[in-house]
């Protein structure tokens, strides 16, 4: 009688939805075994992965540089390498490559095509003559762009009492360029009221650099 009951119950369990749920939730030996099989997941060995991540983290922390300035340069631009021990600061960047001249992110002049070779040799004057004044020493588009910048900096300083106009530009130039172009940029900047030119260059490996003495990026503006 008992075995008949058991057989009927098993049949009921295997054939109906209620029976299958009952088997899964009940505390019988059979269901406990099946549950153990179901719950058994596979463990990922994360220790080795963690080792790799820690090594990458240490490497990145060693090379991390909070003082670095960031600016976009045209593709293929090569900066000269220097042993100068002073980190560059953020500022107004004049970026000059073999193809163009830009003030910050804004292109202000495109050189004549084919006027400069890949080695920087000048075949002809790369700046069109209609953009030159003052016996070819002043680059008009750059002068006008710098004047606008100067006026906006002064206006902001006057209205908000923020950072004063310092008259400084960062010159980021390709190392293959000739001094003839650099000279004109310095002259144009000086004419527009920028009396100090900072040559931004790539730091030589192995040279320790420090912040400049007048470093003020994280200081509060004078009230």
């Amino acid at each position: 009688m008992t075995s008949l009951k058991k057989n009927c119950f098993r049949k009921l369990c295997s054939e109906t939805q209620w029976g299958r749920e009952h088997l899964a939730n009940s505390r019988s030996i059979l269901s406990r075994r099946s549950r153990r099989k179901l719950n058994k997941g596979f463990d990922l060995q994360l220790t080795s992965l963690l080792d790799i991540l820690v090594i990458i983290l240490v490497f990145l922390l060693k090379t991390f540089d909070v003082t670095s300035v960031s600016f976009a340069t045209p593709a293929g631009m090569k900066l000269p390498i220097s042993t100068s021990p002073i980190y560059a600061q953020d500022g107004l960047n004049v970026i000059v490559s073999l193809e163009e001249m830009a003030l910050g992110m804004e292109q202000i002049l495109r050189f004549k095509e084919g006027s400069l070779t890949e080695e920087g040799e000048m075949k002809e004057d790369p700046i069109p003559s209609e953009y030159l004044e003052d016996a070819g020493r002043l680059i008009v588009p750059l002068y006008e762009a710098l004047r606008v910048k100067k006026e906006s900096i002064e206006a902001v300083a006057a209205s908000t009492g923020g950072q004063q106009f310092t008259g400084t530009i960062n010159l980021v130039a390709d190392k293959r360029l000739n001094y003839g172009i650099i000279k004109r940029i310095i002259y144009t900047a000086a004419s527009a009221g920028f009396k100090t030119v900072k040559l931004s260059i790539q730091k030589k490996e192995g040279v320790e650099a420090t912040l400049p003495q007048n470093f003020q990026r994280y200081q509060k503006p004078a009230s």
Partner: protein
Amino acid sequence: MLRRPSSRSKRLPETVELNLVPLMDALVTLICFLLFTSAFLSIVEIETPVPIVSNEDPTELEVAAKPIQLTLKIHSKEIWIEAGFGSLFSRRIPVMEGGVGLEKISPKDGEEKSVLSENSPQYDYEALHQALVEVKQKWPRETTVVLMPDSGVSYDTIIQVIDVSRFFKETDPPLYKKVKYEDGSEIDVVEKELFPKIVFGNTMG
């Protein structure tokens, strides 16, 4: 009759597994942050004030400093070092014979090789540095050098000249300067800077 020993004592101690997933989450986030914010190319600067034409008389301090007007004239084949417009010191540093320069063999693959070429002069930066050390030892108070490169000189050459002009090297003979403390005592300190102030002298011309 002996009883069967208890199986409880044979049970191995359970190993504790650390849950490393949150730690990994934190590390991955940190690495992403560092990758986005770090710069693998460090940029340094060299400050060059633009010379100003002035009718004002020099100040007492400027007169007391007795500037020697140290000038470096960089030409395509030589560099001239002059002090006092050539009256105090004058030396010519020629380009090294058979100037060794890097020339591209084939522009396609960008391969470079050292070849003898007249078109790529190699300036003798070591000789220039030695001459400047000599000048500094004669006039230790001088700190400014005026650069007057030709228009055809490359920007890279100018930066190399500035590099050898600004600081002493470890192999140079030491130059001592006196430093005064607040209590009046003086000590000798090794000078590290050669001519740190750089001015371009021919931007107006």
